[in-house]
């Protein structure tokens, strides 16, 4: 079976093994098959030697968190993310395999319909309060919001991309982000209709067609040339990849406008009012979302932005190893995600921090579910520069 991967990219791994410790699933299982090098070996078996695709090979592909920590570790620059996305797309398109069953596909499709997402979330929230929803077993936050105040645009200097699940469950982070952007002197516009879901989860699941269609809708919803600010590391990485995904000049131009909120703020942080007495006492640990650190590689900006507002920022000692959230991963591979998170929790414990910041909704949910006191960096900054009245 052909995987639709780039031949040169597939050939570029020399098998040195430097990626192994940076792969969360290898770290917790010790199994070569669940490492980047092992997964590439499996891809080569299928693509080059036409090995039959059995359940084991599907498992090898499906258990990848797609954190892309292997890419920053790879001295040969193997674009592992592309290889894995192409592989999953080929597996998903082969109807003889039951990769991505109908109910999963349906779930991913629903994310593209924002009213449905918000309504569904509200239904779950009501269910939670009636004691009808086993939140822990479903991996849901303990208390979903019933109703969040609507976001009000404040100008047209920049766009804020708000996303699907994040907008439904963590709208407070957007409120905080808008407050901070406003304090930095930028009027914030929201994306128009259809600009809610970036398509990242669909793309990672191998549902490329859904992802590309969502990408076109997002692009259409953000007309003009204003920078598109993203406060979700996963969405930001996806929006920045539209150029490659769609391959059109418009998409390339769109991707060039995308900027992570910390990247945008870092050079402007001096413009924010920072009062010594408002500084948050540390130690506060920075947990880098993989798609900020390994994909966008703009994780250092988070520190620049936070430094004036936090007394003591501390680093985790795990080289940015994934926390196991991985978009829908924590739902689909609960056991692996929990084992991976266990390492992260140990690292947080060693850091001595009682508060953790993480710039990605998935990581926030996954760590919160383990009882970690974790917040988005924008919430910290907002409480210092744009305190709620």
């Amino acid at each position, binding site marked *: 079976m052909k995987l639709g991967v780039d031949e040169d990219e597939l050939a*570029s791994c*020399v*098998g*040195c*093994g*430097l*990626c*192994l*410790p*940076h792969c969360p699933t*290898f770290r917790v*299982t*010790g*199994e*070569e*098959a669940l490492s980047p*090098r*092992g997964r590439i*070996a*499996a891809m080569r078996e299928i693509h080059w030697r036409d090995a039959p695709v059995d359940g084991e090979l599907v498992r090898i592909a499906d258990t990848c968190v797609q954190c892309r920590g292997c890419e920053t*570790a*790879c*001295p*040969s*620059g193997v674009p592992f993310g592309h290889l894995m996305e192409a592989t999953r797309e080929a597996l998903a398109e082969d109807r003889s395999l039951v990769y991505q069953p109908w109910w999963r596909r349906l779930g991913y499709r629903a994310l593209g319909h924002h009213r449905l997402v918000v309504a569904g979330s509200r239904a779950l929230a009501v269910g939670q309060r009636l004691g009808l929803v086993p939140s822990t077993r479903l991996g849901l936050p303990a208390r979903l919001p019933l109703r969040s105040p609507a976001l009000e645009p404040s100008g047209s200097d920049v766009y804020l991309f708000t996303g699907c699940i994040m907008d439904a469950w963590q709208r407070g982070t957007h409120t905080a982000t808008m407050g901070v952007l406003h304090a930095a002197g930028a009027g914030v516009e929201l994306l128009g209709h259809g600009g809610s879901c970036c398509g990242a989860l669909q793309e990672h699941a191998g549902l490329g067609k859904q992802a590309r269609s969502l990408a076109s809708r997002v692009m259409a919803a953000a007309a003009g040339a204003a920078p598109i600010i993203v406060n979700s590391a996963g969405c930001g990485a996806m929006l920045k990849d539209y150029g490659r995904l769609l391959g059109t000049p418009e998409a390339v131009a769109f991707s060039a406008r995308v900027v992570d909120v910390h990247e945008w703020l870092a050079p402007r942080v001096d413009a924010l009012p920072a009062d010594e007495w408002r500084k948050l006492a540390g130690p506060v640990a920075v947990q880098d979302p993989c798609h900020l650190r390994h994909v966008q590689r703009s994780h250092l900006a988070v520190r620049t932005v936070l430094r004036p507002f936090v007394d003591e920022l501390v680093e985790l*000692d795990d080289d940015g190893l994934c926390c196991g959230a991985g978009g829908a991963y924590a739902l689909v591979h609960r056991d692996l995600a929990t084992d991976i998170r266990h390492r992260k929790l140990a690292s947080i414990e060693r850091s001595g921090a009682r508060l953790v910041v993480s710039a990605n909704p998935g990581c926030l949910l996954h760590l919160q579910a383990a009882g970690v006191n974790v917040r988005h960096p924008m919430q910290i900054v907002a409480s210092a520069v744009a305190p709620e009245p």
Partner: protein
Amino acid sequence: MYERDASMITVDRPAVVCFPRTAVEVQACVRAAAHHDRPVVARGAGTGLAGGAVPVASGVGGPVVITTTKMDRILSVDVEDRVAWVQPGVVNLDLTRALAGHRMHFAPDPSSQQSCTIGGNVANNSGGPHCLAYGVTSAHVLAVDVVLADGSLARLGALEADVPGYDLRGAFVGSEGTMGISTRIAVRLTPNPPAVKTMLLDFVSVDDAAGCVSGIIAAGLVPAALEMIEGKMIEAVEAFVHAGYPADAAAVLLVEVDGLPGGVAEDAAAVASVGERCGARTVRIAADETERQLLWKGRKSAFGAVARIAPNYYLHDTVVPRTRLVEVLREIYDIAARHDLLVMNVFHAGDGNLHPLLVFDAREPGVLERVHAAGDEIVGASLRAGGVLTGEHGIGLEKKAYMSQMFSADDLDAQARLRAAFDPDERMNPSKVLPAGSRCGDLQGVPEGAWV
């Protein structure tokens, strides 16, 4: 995927892959293999460069691969005795990090230290830049619990200063899995030096840089590390790490001195003065820990930079007397030129451990033959200069054929006797290290992956 390590050599597929978590489980695996007359191949992270972990069939069937990656716990740390007991699957850098709070570290630091396991380090007697001053793995292993070929468990060495009898520990370390499988290892902990200075010396001629290496050693200095990067490699490294490596230099030396602050200052001054006498254009001392880390990152990611220059490369690991570095380096350039190949060097100059990389594109017809021929000549030149085959990567499958160039039949026979004392039936990692009586490995092309 368990049929190869970082050497890209493949021979046979494993029949079974085992993931033991305890010594008892390793014993069970080895006994089961013995019962079914299967060879046993131990595997850590699979970062070896000589095919040491590549399974080769013997007996009635396919090899049993025993992977130690699930045995990844640090069992105890004893600061007073300066020893830690670790399982073989513990990653080298993880151990050093875990010791940071005690201001101690595990001294062997191969360039693959972020991935490679202590069990693999023991099997290969691994080196690294800092073994110039601190010694290779054998100097840092006090005792090893080993599952022998018959499934019995023996402790080789001891925490006591000396053990009666032969140095079985010494024989086992570096035996590349042919004498047994380690299940727990007592490693020596080294106190972190109170002061460190890292210096970058740059030269407009490789000869001057190599001369400077001999000059530093001859001046009675024992730097913690003394590394050379030369030619195109500097440019590639700099483009990758932006550490301020002078891209126009013919060669640079990365020199680290450590110890007490007073002595470190004097050593640094002495290195600088040798450098200036030998024609160093500039001598730069890393101003802080960040700059120091950046310089080391450049050195340790050098081979990654090579992967970006050319699609394939082939690496040797010979050691030559330090006083003959200049002439051997020249000869290596001549050899590469004769075979119309590009050669680059990033190596442990302080102990004469060369890592010449032949850079090529395997798609070019006939290039593999030229690479092999050049490799043979490089090995020959190193041996003629009084050197040895391998300084830290091991013999494995890849360099087995060269063994008879360094050792006589009688020498090899003595080594075979030692191996037979541990494993009379040649069940543990057969066909490795010793050429005699072993079947020819299917060396497909040339090993590509490598760090230097």
